């Protein structure tokens, strides 16, 4: 495909990545969060695929397939199942992030600041390869990672914390894809595996928490301190 189309498509995919991150931060319904997380996985796949097609890079194509399998199929599936189980015994209140530590309006404004911060700190990295359009999109990956971190800090429910952790990881993956343009397959696989691992761990943790307290509201964990 010709260059301008490549740039536009890449930018579009990156924009989708960012918007889905914002929406995940915005929504309270865990079901909606999972849905947008799936869409974000698609955007991530698209980024990998576009770079692969542009660079005629088979390994990147493989990575794209892997990302698709993991982010669009496996993880959402896990999340949905966990959500279903939470609904089964947690009742309606398990379905919503009822009261995040920072209210939604404030966290949206915080996300705006984080994005600009990501832009500021990633200028040097971008300047390394000013020619490549992929490099210009690095700030977006970083912004997604930061937003995910922010959500991880401010969310109460274990489920939505899991989701925000995965969001952060999507951001990291995007940065990896955009910087190295896929040359380090190992790093990719490493990230993906450790995500899967972390997801499994949190999965176990949440189920344990639920078995103990009947629902997974992490504030209840304070009781465990003493």
């Amino acid at each position, binding site marked *: 495909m010709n260059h301008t189309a490549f740039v536009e498509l890449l930018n579009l995919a990156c924009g989708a990545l960012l918007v889905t991150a914002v929406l995940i931060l915005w929504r309270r319904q865990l079901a909606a969060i999972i849905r947008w997380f799936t869409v974000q996985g698609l955007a991530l796949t698209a980024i990998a695929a576009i770079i692969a097609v542009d660079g005629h890079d088979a390994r990147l194509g493989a990575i794209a397939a892997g990302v698709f399998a993991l982010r669009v199929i496996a993880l959402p599936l896990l999340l949905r199942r966990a959500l279903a189980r939470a609904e089964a015994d947690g009742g309606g209140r398990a379905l919503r992030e009822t009261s995040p530590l920072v209210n939604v309006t404030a966290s949206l404004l915080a996300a705006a600041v984080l994005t*600009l911060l990501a832009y500021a700190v990633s200028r040097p990295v971008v300047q390394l390869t000013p020619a490549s359009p992929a490099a210009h999109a690095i700030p977006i990956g970083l912004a997604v990672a930061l937003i995910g971190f922010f959500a991880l800090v401010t969310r109460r429910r274990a489920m939505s914390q899991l989701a925000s952790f995965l969001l952060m990881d999507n951001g990291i993956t995007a940065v990896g894809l955009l910087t190295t343009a896929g040359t380090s397959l190992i790093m990719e696989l490493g990230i993906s595996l450790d995500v899967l691992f972390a997801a499994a761990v949190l999965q176990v943790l949440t189920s344990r928490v639920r078995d103990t307290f009947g629902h997974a509201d992490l504030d209840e964990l304070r009781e465990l301190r003493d």
Partner: protein
Amino acid sequence: MSPATPALAAAHSASRFWPGIGAHWGLTWPALAGAGTLALITALFSLAVPRRWRAVVSGAGTALTGLAGAAAGVAAVTGHRSPTLSVPGVLPLSGVTLAVDPLGGWFIAVTGAVAVAVGSYAIGYQGRAASRPSAAVLPLFVASLLAVPAAASAVTLLACWELMALTSLLLVLAEHKRRPEVAVAARWYAIMTHLGLVCVLAGLMLFAAHARGDSFAALARAAPHLSPAVKSTVFVLVLVGFGSKAGLVPLHAWLPRAHPEAPSHVSALMSAAMVNLGLYGLIRVGSGLLGGGSAWWWLLLIALGAVSAVYGILQAAMSTDVKRLLGCSTTENMGLACVGIGAGGLFATTGHPVLAGLALAAALLHVATHAAFKTLLFLAAGSVLHAAGTRDLDALGGLRRGMPATTLAFGWGALAASALPPGTAFVSEWLLVQALIHGLHGASTATAITLPLAVSAVALTAGLAVATFVKAFGTGFLAKPRSAGAAAAHESPGSMLAGMGLAGAACAILALVPGAVLPAIGRAVAAAEVAAASGAGGVVTLRLDGLAGEVSPLLLTVALLIVMVAAAAWLRALPARSARRKARLWDCGGGPLTARMEYTATSFAEPLQRVFDDVLAPETDLDVTHHDEARYLVASAEYRGRVPDRIERRLYEPVLRAVGAWGDAARRLAPGSVHRYLGYGFYAVAGLLIVLAVTR
């Protein structure tokens, strides 16, 4: 040495500093001298004449002083060059050095114009109650305001600055006999303004210490050789000093106190003319004398300006005291102007002269527009206070029946203040936003991050300003009167209406044909050594030079009027149209609606208060008293809610408390026993000896 030499030297150097000065005598000096003389004569006469004539003499004299000042300013900005005046020996160090360049001329012209309106208003406002001191000080205050931008050396500037501070303080104190809170406000004002003076003094002296002589010419010559550290120190010091005068957050604490308590014509002078001089100082020292400097100065200024704008208008939106509201909105407008100045300096340092000129021109135009509408609004508020006896919006309302002219004036002022076409502030804020938006092209990282935030701050400010002034006008002047005073309000005497009329006319001119003043602003910008010219021009249609962007407030207004007239005519021409009928308000069929059922200013602002809960931190408390026989029955419930100035709570009160604690500690050291004092002396001597012994 002979007094002539330094004068010649100063003039000579100045002619190098401002090329062309000294070419020939212009109108400026005669007019300024006339203003000074008039002020003195007026002061003396208003001390002499009987009470009956005092207000007339002082008011008319002030107006004439202002007129002369305005003439001087106009002469200066229209390019009649005037030489530097130097009178040695009047003050220590360098004597008095005066020079008027277009930048100073612009501020002098604005001040003079404000003084004309205020003077004619003061005739009726002071009336029989005019006390001798306040009547005498008013023209002197105007004269000092005119003198500050004419100062051409550090010492002269500081002297005029102090004169201005003292005269304004006296005027603020005018009504302290009637109301005790005046004294509190005056104390705040005195402390803040003198802390500011100290900062300016420190900054300029540090600057002068590195230069040969303290005249601006010498300072400007020395600036390039200064080390960045010194330059930055000087800038930060003068920023604090002048910023406190301009009422920038967090140094704004005096402003919402002094403005409501001062007599309204003084509030108008302070809010429309005096605070501008803080901006003048920033431009003069920051851009003119220090010659730009590093980018972070201006980013800091933009940040301060944006914060001041948003915080000021939020406080204004919350306050129900109409004069306090206007004072907070002064903070807001100074903030907007500072965003413009900061953007100008930023673009100048990053090498975009056209944008720099545009931004600074927007700031200077905003100074003028703000002066016009703030004068109008304060004068109108003064008439309301005069007629209804209260400043509380919750107790006003329905004034349009009693005082139609004042209502019209305040309405026009409110439209001018809320940047909506055909309002006055619309043009200057349009220019400002244009400058910010075009600045994104080829911007550095910091700039690229600052500009969008600045634009959103300006936008939020504009939106909140609309809500604020709809509240002020709608609840204060429309609807039903909420108190007996408001119901009995009567129109003000002619001289006050004349003052408002002048200010309103100025608003109209600036709103419809802003292009008329842009050439003058261009010269002022050039004199500030920021850019060659203001980046905009055109009389009917406002065009940006070298950038795409144009708007025509005049044609816009004409189009609106045409459509309105056409629509009205169409309605009249309708074949099947039935006559208009008066009917009672729809009260849902129940009893008549009383004034207590109306929305008050507080209730109008309540949604905004909820939205900005985290920023404003409002305080509410609810006392419920129960019946003593059954504590389940509520006898009465009392609800109190107020929105305190949060920055004040967080910043000033701890400081004041600490100072108080130190004072108490000091008092405990001095119980008045002679023995203890002797003991202090002994311990001091002994300690000294020990130190000497050790260090030997």
